[in-house]
């Protein structure tokens, strides 16, 4: 059978009349991209180009300040060059997709969408804000976005937190507020605490569907699907209930996720029913099963009547230890038919036939017999929907070792499963271990993956956006046993060696906030990635940070942006991680430890006659220069002075050793002085006697403040930067601690991430890429006349990776009227 969705896409591309719809597809119009909830961007862009994803970096941040707004538990959508996302702070934000600038927020400041009810963990009955990712729709010919949230309006059940859907124009105007779809009664002894927190609205025809669930199962509410009229927001009768009959007081089967559709059926999954949950060994359980019981099920209902077409329920009531289907259904348009795929909280993944609900496969394929029934089926953390890349399902799942090794072995990992494999030995396509350092490796360590052209994007709880390439588009280099607890070389049948994927790119969010949590995703739209973090920022990540290593000389004309005539390019070797100047000399350091001196001829690449090599020791991590002296620092803390003879390797007569203290993390030099910074914040000045170790008379201590993170020297001055952005100048009196008269404060802006100095000039770099020159007047804050802005290119301040960010700090060095920069 020909894959239907792919067929449609090709047809669109062959017909210019249908092209506008295709352009809409390059947007990301709802959670998981479209109503199939496949998490797949079908159209090519830089994000599906393996050669370009390595150049991803943070393009902008909302807000641009280091302090975020409320946590983003929802995921962004992207429509018409705008980004829409709601926050736990109760506000819905519309941002310019190109710049990150706030276009509007709803409601206006001061009246967030939060109820008054403080019950539940952290007020989750009524004060949970906006967790529902938005969905684009056309309402009466008007572009609109729809999301769910609690309404503080007293007319909404007293404003306690009863929730409804909100439909807004793309300009922020309210089209309608729906009837209440989830009720909260906060009075003592009351039970209702329904939510629509995690369900992104599904728009199908003239209806909007949303799942209703509870908060914390205390107690479980009746799972149901609320439907409103698209044009008015009025409730439409829809009789589906997960347990019993709608409204009969039966509890269970919450619809915690975003409903999906293939245009005919509506698909979703449901939560647990048993009160209290029943745990292994399942022999002392209480509670009676409601009838009917469609909890713990994957379900297809008729889009009009709400009648159940089929219900697939692998874990019976007798084993209901709360293994919800928290992950929703993903519709897979595969070579072997239309499948509905998802994972339960217990770690088992399934694909069922869309037509009749029969199980096509289970992973791990234990069957549903004794071994399966006796395994753990509890409240564990496999809660993220998979990304369906045609015949491949990419998902956070328990893995082949689930039964023997316990529930947590799949945490921090993604499995790619061949949905149409005819044998279980072909089921696992690849495995990617994204545990430390990319994530904590715990249950919430990776988010919901998204994919385009075989390039997979997934966020982690440590704020990393990880990019992986399917081996069909990027050759893989390593293998694992499909059961990860056997080595590949001793991988016993029925397990088989499979590909092990390494990240193609790792972009660290500047606020380090989680972009994983329950089911957060990276939206892929028009060649850019959009994520929201738990620390309250939205970031746009884009390719084009390929000018890593480009060196520019300032010609004296302040300017901004990429087309900036005030800067002359001198080199563009991506290996460059640091540049410094001393006297009339310019030097650069490559990431392989090679040190080069500029001879005056701008050029580019490895074969560049404009640069003379002075050393090639891979231990070198930093270089500094002052008063015609060049120094280098090795990764073991050894400091060396260049004597004038180019050489290479450890036995290099061209370099004299001055110290070998492993605490040394930075060096600075100017006007005959050499300084070093230790990892405990101590600053030392070289007195001219080479030595080694802690008791080293060749070095005089000038300060010992643990806040110090960087030093710079120029024009007879020594400067230090604290981790709170404060900049200080040394006035000649050694001292220690915060009350240190030997240092004069020049600025205290928390945006500052780096300082550099040359001749009589001091420069600072902000985390938004702005470069400032000190004019001689100590001051503080953003409106600080003591600093002149020279550039505001964001690629200078936003570190795409830790390595790039680290490289940015020593890279900017001034030298009189000439300063140079090396954008990451």
């Amino acid at each position, binding site marked *: 059978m020909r894959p239907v969705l792919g067929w449609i896409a090709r047809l669109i591309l062959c017909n210019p009349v249908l092209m506008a719809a295709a352009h809409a597809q390059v947007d990301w119009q709802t959670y998981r991209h479209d109503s199939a909830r496949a998490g797949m961007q079908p159209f090519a862009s830089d994000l599906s180009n393996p050669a370009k994803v390595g150049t991803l970096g943070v393009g902008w941040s909302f807000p641009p300040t280091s302090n975020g707004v409320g946590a983003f538990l929802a995921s962004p959508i992207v429509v018409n060059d705008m980004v829409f996302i709601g926050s736990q702070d109760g506000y819905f934000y519309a941002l310019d997709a190109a710049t990150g600038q706030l276009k509007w927020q709803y409601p206006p400041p001061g009246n967030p969408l939060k109820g008054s009810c403080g019950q539940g963990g952290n007020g989750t009955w009524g004060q949970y804000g906006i967790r529902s990712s938005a969905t684009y729709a056309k309402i009466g010919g008007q572009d609109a976005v729809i999301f769910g949230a609690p309404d503080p309006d007293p007319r909404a059940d007293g404003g306690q937190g009863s929730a409804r859907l909100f439909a807004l124009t793309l300009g922020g105007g309210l089209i309608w507020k729906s009837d209440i779809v989830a009720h909260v009664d906060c009075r003592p002894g009351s039970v209702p605490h329904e939510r629509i927190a995690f369900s992104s609205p599904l728009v199908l025809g003239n209806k909007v569907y949303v799942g209703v669930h509870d908060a914390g199962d205390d107690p479980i509410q009746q799972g149901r699907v609320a439907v409103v009229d698209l044009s008015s927001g009025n409730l439409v009768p829809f009789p589906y209930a997960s347990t019993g009959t709608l409204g009969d007081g039966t509890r269970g089967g919450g619809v915690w996720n975003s409903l999906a559709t293939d245009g005919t059926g509506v698909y979703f999954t449901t939560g647990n029913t048993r009160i209290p949950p029943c745990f292994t060994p399942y022999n002392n359980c209480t509670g009676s099963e409601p009838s009917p019981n469609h909890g713990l099920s994957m379900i297809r209902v008729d889009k009009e009547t709400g009648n159940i077409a089929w219900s697939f329920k692998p874990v019976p009531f007798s084993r209901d230890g709360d293994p919800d289907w928290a992950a929703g259904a993903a519709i897979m348009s595969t070579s072997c038919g239309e499948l509905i795929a998802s994972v339960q909280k217990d770690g088992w993944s399934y694909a069922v036939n869309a037509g009749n609900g029969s199980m096509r496969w289970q992973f791990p394929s234990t069957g549903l017999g004794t071994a399966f029934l*006796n395994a753990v089926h509890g409240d564990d953390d496999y809660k993220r929907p998979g990304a369906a890349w045609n015949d491949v399902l990419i998902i956070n799942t328990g893995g082949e070792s689930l039964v023997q090794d316990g529930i947590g072995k799949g945490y921090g990992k993604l499995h790619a499963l061949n949905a149409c494999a005819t044998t279980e030995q072909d089921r696992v396509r690849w495995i990617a271990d994204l545990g430390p350092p990319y994530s904590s490796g715990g249950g919430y360590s990776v988010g919901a993956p998204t994919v385009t052209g075989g390039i997979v994007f997934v966020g982690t709880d440590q704020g990393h956006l990880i990019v992986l390439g399917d081996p069909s588009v990027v050759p893989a280099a390593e293998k694992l046993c499909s059961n990860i607890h056997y080595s590949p070389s001793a991988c*016993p049948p029925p397990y088989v060696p*499979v590909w092990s994927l390494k990240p193609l790119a790792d972009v660290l969010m500047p606020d380090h906030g989680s972009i994983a949590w329950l089911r957060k995703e990276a939206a892929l739209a028009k060649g850019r990635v959009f994520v929201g973090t738990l620390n309250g920022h939205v970031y746009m990540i884009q390719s084009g940070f390929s000018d890593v290593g480009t060196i520019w000389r300032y010609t004296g004309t302040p300017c901004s942006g990429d087309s900036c005539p005030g800067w002359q390019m001198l080199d563009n070797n991506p290996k460059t991680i640091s540049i410094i100047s001393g006297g009339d000399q310019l030097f650069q350091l490559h990431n392989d430890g090679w040190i080069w001196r500029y001879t005056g001829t701008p050029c580019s690449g490895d074969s560049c006659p404009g640069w003379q090599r002075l050393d090639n020791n891979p231990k070198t991590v930093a270089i500094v220069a002052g008063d015609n002296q060049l120094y280098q620092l090795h990764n073991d803390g050894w400091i060396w002075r260049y004597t004038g003879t180019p050489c290479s390797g450890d036995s290099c007569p061209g370099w004299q050793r001055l110290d070998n203290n492993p605490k040394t993390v930075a060096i600075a030099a100017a006007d005959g002085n050499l300084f070093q910074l230790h990892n405990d914040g101590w600053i030392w000045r070289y007195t001219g006697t080479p030595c080694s170790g802690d008791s080293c008379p060749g070095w005089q201590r000038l300060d010992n403040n643990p806040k110090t993170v960087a030093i710079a020297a120029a024009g007879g001055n020594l400067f230090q930067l604290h981790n709170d952005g404060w900049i200080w100048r040394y006035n000649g009196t050694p001292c220690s601690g915060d009350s240190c008269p030997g240092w004069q404060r020049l600025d205290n802006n928390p945006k500052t991430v780096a300082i550099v100095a040359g001749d009589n000039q001091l420069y600072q770099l902000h985390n938004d890429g702005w470069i400032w020159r000190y004019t001689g007047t100590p001051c503080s804050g953003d409106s600080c006349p003591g600093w002149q802005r020279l550039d505001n290119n964001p690629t200078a301040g936003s570190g795409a990776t830790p390595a790039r960010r680290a490289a940015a700090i020593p890279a900017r060095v001034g030298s009189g009227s000439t300063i140079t920069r090396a954008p990451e």
Partner: protein
Amino acid sequence: MRPYLVLVSGVAAIAGIVASVGIASAQEPKLAPEGRGLLPKPTETTPEGPTPAHPFYTDPSGSVSRTIFETEEDPNFRLVIRDFSFLPDRQPHTVTLPSGAFVHLLSGPGEISVAKKRLELAPGTRMAVPAGAPIEVMNNGEYPVVVRALIVEAK
């Protein structure tokens, strides 16, 4: 038949939308590569990926096992938690432990004999095994049977 009805209705819906707004674009987006078919398997020479913390290995006797936990703190005895994996090869495999142990069937089911006494064990079953008693396992299933042993060895 149904998918083609979906196709027709989907295309019709899209055409209707486009016709209603009356726009078309000059720049055509291109499809990204699709995910179809299986991958070639890694070869014997493909380097190994990250090694698990406690991988199973094959000892000289041919048995596949791994040590999960081991303590040397007590001067008189050693506590060891060890997993034995029995492959689905329909062949009998025997393990003999020098000390008393408490065994726990992690995955199966399997056909197990302890001291020549045959037992039908389901996953989750636990039992005590005397020192020196042979544990014989025949795996007639499709997946490895894994037995976890809590062993207390005298020093």
